């Protein structure tokens, strides 16, 4: 449930679901997101769910903070309308040329490379949110022993398809972009396709992801 609603500037509602970050709280955020999206409230121009927050921005010409807050305060979340979790298997190649930070992670975490991969590939991930760059999924949770901070100096260019780790999360760089996550592999799968206007994102909040290790040969001959 929303713990508090405040204003973010003069044209957005900042809905806080509390300090914790876990699947249950995030599922609540996504339920609110979907309900509000379906309501098509006049003036609302963007709804952005994240781990434990929901930001609703609006056109100040059509509605204002107090009016929208009243609507959100009284909104009924339909619990039966549960989220459709899709499941995906994402192929990942971990050859040296793709696993840019695996050695650094070995040192940071004091765990052998093979153990890092073992634990990573065993995990079923949950998609908390997508964004920062178009289609980038934020996936959790990594085991405690795999949690590392961002690079001290972010890379100017992280290659498209890179799989990055930071704190309790993994992500996928949907196109070449600056970024500071620890890169451990690369997927040949296209995660964001802007030509598909209806469903440009392969992975959406609430989806479940398993990564599957593939050889370099498979990577090179990969066809979707």
């Amino acid at each position: 449930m929303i713990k508090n609603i405040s204003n973010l500037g003069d044209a957005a509602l900042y809905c806080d679901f509390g300090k914790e970050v876990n699947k249950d709280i995030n599922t609540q955020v996504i339920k609110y997101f979907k309900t509000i999206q379906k309501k098509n409230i006049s003036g609302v121009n963007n709804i952005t769910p994240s781990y434990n927050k929901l930001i609703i921005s609006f056109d100040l010409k059509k509605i204002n903070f107090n009016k929208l807050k009243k609507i959100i305060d009284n909104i009924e979340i339909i619990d039966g309308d549960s989220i459709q979790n899709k499941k995906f298997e994402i192929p990942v190649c971990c050859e040296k040329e793709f696993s840019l930070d695996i050695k650094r992670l070995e040192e940071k975490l004091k765990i052998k490379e093979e153990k890092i991969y073992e634990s990573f590939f065993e995990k079923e991930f949950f998609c908390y949110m997508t964004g920062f760059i178009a289609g980038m999924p934020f996936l959790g949770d990594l085991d405690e022993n795999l949690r590392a901070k961002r690079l001290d100096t972010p890379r100017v260019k992280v290659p498209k398809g890179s799989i990055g780790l930071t704190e309790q999360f993994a992500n996928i760089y949907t196109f070449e972009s600056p970024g500071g996550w620890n890169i451990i592999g690369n997927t040949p799968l296209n995660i964001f396709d802007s030509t598909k206007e209806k469903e440009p994102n392969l992975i959406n909040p609430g989806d479940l992801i398993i990564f599957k290790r593939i050889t370099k040969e498979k990577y090179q001959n990969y066809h979707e």
Partner: protein
Amino acid sequence: MNKNYFEIIRAGINSTFQDLGRNNLYHIGVPFSGAMDNRNYLLANKLVGNDYDDPVIEFAYQGPHLKYHGDKINIAITGDVSFKIKNGDNLIDGECYQSFILENGDELDIISTNKSVYGYLAISGTFDLKFQWSSCSTNTKAKIGSNNGEKLSDNQKITIKEINNNFVNRKLNYVNTKIENIRVIKGTNFNYFSEEGKKIFFKNEFKVSKLSDRMGMRLEGKKIENIVDTNIRSEGLIKGVIQVPADGNPIIMLSDHGTIGGYPKIGVVVSADYDKLVQLTPGSKVKFQEVDLNSAETLFKLYDLETQNLISQI
């Protein structure tokens, strides 16, 4: 066959097609985009008798130099811009907020913006563009929108789908003013900063850095000290949000901003000041001034009334 087109002799620094932008895509990571300076965008379209939401060419600093081929067409430029029109041997000094007729073979040379960043070129008609999510706005970082998500380049052609034969000469008396005090509402992480840091934010001057583009504006000044945490859990952003990363220098999110961010938010620029904010050139000095939500809403009403009033004068 499109017989009406512009030939690009020089594309300019960052010339892109823009309109009102895209809604309801933040949750998949696609930003708003659209014309940075909304008022000047609307005025440009009105001056050539277009619909208010028609695509225009936005340029930054140096604009494009174009040669026109085709039937007579009306154009208008808004902002604070120096440009020339070459008609045969005649070289005419252009004036902003006034429509001009271009004929076959005429050249339009948008030399530069003056003490501002963005200017707008509208034509009496429609460009032949690809729309994505109901908008032509080009986002060069994500490669979304018209022109394959790229800015205009030299020697390219801009084809015109239709001319609306609206040749009324229109004019508006309007002068852009430069903003010095940017009004902000306190951000959701305002209390992450030390008392001294908060004082610096509202009392000291900041300088606009060269590292500013359609995504964001970086500012330089006395370091704003964070006493809680220099990172927050990543969460949604909107345009106008002022984030302060560990180095203590504010960054203001602009129209092509990343949709999610993990730096503390010290403030948010009020909607009424956004058009003027984006026009600040590198090196400009600015101060932040605190206002509350009620005042911000009133300021926006005034800004919107003034815009409507200008539009009705055309």
